[in-house]
């Protein structure tokens, strides 16, 4: 630390330049992680929030709600299986709603989710009252609709359908397939989704999937027992959300590249500095400095510089979050920020090891400098 801090202070300009690059990289890493987190929330928050362990789909649907169609009668049978503590069905359809009898007609895209009122799939309301089985005309909606001017008591019309429903409650952080979720009863959902005759393929009381509770469920056994079904973990079901894998993959790839770039930038910068100073290191070695002593100087320098830059990057990211428009799917997760901060730090310290390796190769004989 002794050498490291004094050199940092002495070479303010050069070190603040490399610090600035690291700040920018860290900033971008954190923004991307926030964006990735925001996107995946938008895409699958409802799935992530639900208190289920496994999801049963129709065979061949590859864990996608939109490709899967099952009969609700399966719920009872699934509940009787070993290790299944509870089961509840869900149906999903995309739709467009607008406030009926409103002067300014604002249309909003939503995900209409059919659930059994009172089941573990129903999120708790933050305002208003929950769904009731005997009141199929009532819905609870995500609070993002509030900002669009919807409030409790409003009547919603659903485009392409004669159905009208009333908002009785608001839930928070419930988005599905990038759209705010509207929860309704399964029957209501069916009347919207299967309005056209024959679209239910003759399945009695169709649903898209059945969520299961029970940590020790054996999906293989369920698959064997129920023909025409496939049961997957909740995580796999989230991966099956439309666009989820692709979005996450893109962001992860960018993050990986950024980490690699930061490793190279910091590694190369310190390597060049080390080359420049190899004579100085040679002299210090001649005087008696061990490789350990000099190596520690470099590593602690990288550690200090990276830590400061990462902290500045985090501050900038939280500052950015304040000015980003609300519609941006940006949500910082403290856990993720900590993980990426540590990852950046580890990567930069690892990259400084090539400089350390160089130091061990410097011959102190250089200090004498004029060997014939």
């Amino acid at each position, binding site marked *: 630390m002794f050498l490291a801090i004094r050199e940092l202070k002495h070479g303010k300009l050069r070190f603040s330049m490399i610090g600035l690059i690291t700040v920018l990289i860290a900033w971008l890493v954190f923004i991307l992680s926030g964006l990735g987190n925001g996107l995946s929330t938008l895409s699958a928050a409802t799935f992530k929030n639900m208190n289920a362990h496994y999801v049963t789909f129709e065979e061949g649907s590859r864990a996608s709600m939109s490709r899967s169609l099952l009969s609700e009668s399966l719920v009872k049978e699934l509940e009787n299986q070993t290790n299944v503590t509870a089961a509840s069905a869900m149906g999903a359809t995309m739709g467009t709603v607008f406030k009926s009898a409103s002067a300014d007609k604002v249309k909003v895209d939503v995900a209409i989710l059919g659930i059994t009122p009172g089941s573990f799939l129903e999120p708790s309301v933050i305002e208003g009252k929950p769904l009731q089985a005997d009141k199929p005309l009532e819905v609870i909606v995500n609070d993002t609709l509030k900002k669009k001017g919807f409030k409790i008591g409003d009547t919603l019309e659903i485009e392409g359908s004669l159905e009208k429903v009333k908002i009785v409650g608001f839930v928070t952080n419930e988005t599905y397939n990038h759209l705010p979720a509207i929860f309704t009863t399964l029957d209501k959902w069916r009347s919207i989704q299967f309005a056209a005759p024959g679209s239910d393929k003759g399945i009695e009381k169709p649903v898209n999937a059945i969520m299961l509770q029970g940590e020790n469920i054996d999906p293989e056994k369920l698959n064997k027992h129920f023909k025409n079904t496939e049961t997957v973990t909740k995580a796999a079901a989230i991966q099956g959300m439309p666009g989820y894998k692709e979005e996450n993959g893109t962001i992860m790839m960018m993050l990986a590249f950024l980490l690699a770039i930061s490793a190279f930038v910091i590694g190369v910068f310190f390597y060049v500095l080390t080359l420049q100073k190899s004579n100085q290191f040679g002299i210090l070695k001649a005087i*008696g400095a061990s490789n350990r*002593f000099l190596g520690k100087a470099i590593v602690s320098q990288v550690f200090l510089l990276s830590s400061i830059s990462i902290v500045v990057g985090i501050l900038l990211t939280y500052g950015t979050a304040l000015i980003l428009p609300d519609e941006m799917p940006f949500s910082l997760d403290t856990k993720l920020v900590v993980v990426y901060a540590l990852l950046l730090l580890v990567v930069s310290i690892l990259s400084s090891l090539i400089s350390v390796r160089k130091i061990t190769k410097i011959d102190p004989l250089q200090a*004498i400098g004029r060997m014939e």
Partner: protein
Amino acid sequence: MSVIQFKNVSKLYQQGENQVLALDNVSLTVEQGEFIAVIGPSGSGKSTFLAIAGALLHATKGEVIINGKSLNELKPKDLAQLRLKEIGFILQNSNLVPYLNVLEQLLVVKRMSGKLVKEDKEFAKELLQSLGLAAKMEKLPEQLSGGERQRVAIARAFINNPSIILADEPTASLDSKNAHEVVQLIAKETKTRNKAAIMVTHDERMLEYCDKVYKMEDGKLKRDDSFSF
């Protein structure tokens, strides 16, 4: 008591197909409190001699004994420890660390061997005082004159209380006034602190401060009695 002893030391360099004998059967003993000079034309093997004395280079034949320990038996890590504890180097261009102030130049050497204690700081200050640098302790090398820098290098060589001081052309980049001053100081500190000092130089004006003069020629070291004081 002999501090450093060369026993029939030879050094052979392989240069392409030729072998160059840089040191040829050199024997030498330097006692405590003794300041000797090695002179000779360039290419005579002076630097090789100094590098071997400074545990930076291994002898091909023979052995070097410092404080009763043969260097042949030591591992590279132990050699670094030995350089740190027993040898003080004064190099021709002072070679200070550019971003450390005068006091820190000495303290960093202390840090190499572990924790810094209060006594170290006091000893460093005392050393700098005795070398006339009391007013310069907070200065960076770039703010010092060549003579002052070389005096810092002397202080640095003495900071770990080594038993041997090795000076490699310490006056090469100094004017004659500063050169005299610097060699005088090396002689003074060597005597008062009872060290053994070897100075490699080709500046014959400086020999008056030395106890013995050796001449190096084609790898052979001979006592030169023409300089007797």
